[in-house]
């Protein structure tokens, strides 16, 4: 898994936000389009693509795609 790939996948889920506006260090919850549905979508896409389940709390703590990436790496290592 690459960070750039994850950023791209996350960016694809924001339909009203220009792709270039979402980078590895974008605070996702500050995006105008952000909703609780996006938290669910990100949890689901990570489950689907990386077979890792993020908890609701982990999603609340994670701010940026990099934060999410690090949680995935850590969980993959512990598997």
């Amino acid at each position, binding site marked *: 898994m690459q960070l750039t790939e994850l950023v791209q996948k996350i960016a694809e889920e924001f339909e009203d936000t220009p792709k270039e506006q979402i980078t590895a260090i974008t605070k996702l919850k500050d995006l105008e389009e952000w909703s*609780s549905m996006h*938290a*669910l979508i990100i949890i*689901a896409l990570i489950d*689907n693509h990386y077979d890792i389940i993020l908890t*609701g709390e982990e999603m609340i703590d994670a701010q940026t795609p990099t934060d999410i990436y690090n949680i995935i790496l850590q969980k993959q290592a512990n598997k």
Partner: protein
Amino acid sequence: MYNPFSLQGKTVLVTGASSGIGQQIAISVTKMGAKVVITARNKERLLATYEQLVAEGHQWVLADLAKEEEIKNLVNAVPKLDGVVHSAGIIQPFPIKFLKKKNFEPIQSINYNAILLLTAALLSNKKINRQASFVFLSSIASQYPYKGAATYASTKAAIEAFAKVLAVEHSSKGIRSNCLSPGMVKTAMYEQTEQAVGAKKMSAYIEQYPLGVGTPEDIANATIFLLSDASKWINGITIRLDGGLLAGMH
């Protein structure tokens, strides 16, 4: 004293009795004179409910209702019943476009499969007395959807339909079957939803409830009514308990 809501002489099975709504239902119906059999998976929490039951003669049985074998054991362990309350249930928000079988099998197995299998086993093993009352916990999500509720809302809608079929199929024995459809009630499930959507969103949502958020007691009181002979002419319906939320929505 005149009390059409008395449950004296009735024996009631309550699933999901280790937490939230099921726990309060178990306690409340014993206050109305019923004997209960309470069930759930978590022994410590189920025993905590057991400690709070009023009077003697109650029973607790550990069972994972997602497992057919354990449903069988539960059915073997229960005496003849005058009431069955299904409160066991889980919630798992999930966006539709990512759904795979593995994402909805767990919720389906407890919110749907378990109810059908347990009801069938109770009936075929002759554990249900004449005039018995079934009460199923649905949710307003079944009729008034929100994003992410695909699996939850559809299992609840299925149970509302199932309850009506049960009502039709067994009314000749005076057996009744109804649903309760609560809005947001303060339980572990509430905390879970709050964690998923964030405290701010949750309090904004709760502000829409004219009578505030529901309590497990509110649901338990409606359950007492449906289990009692006071509701003996009520069959195949769903009672909405939402603090007036939906009355004001158009």
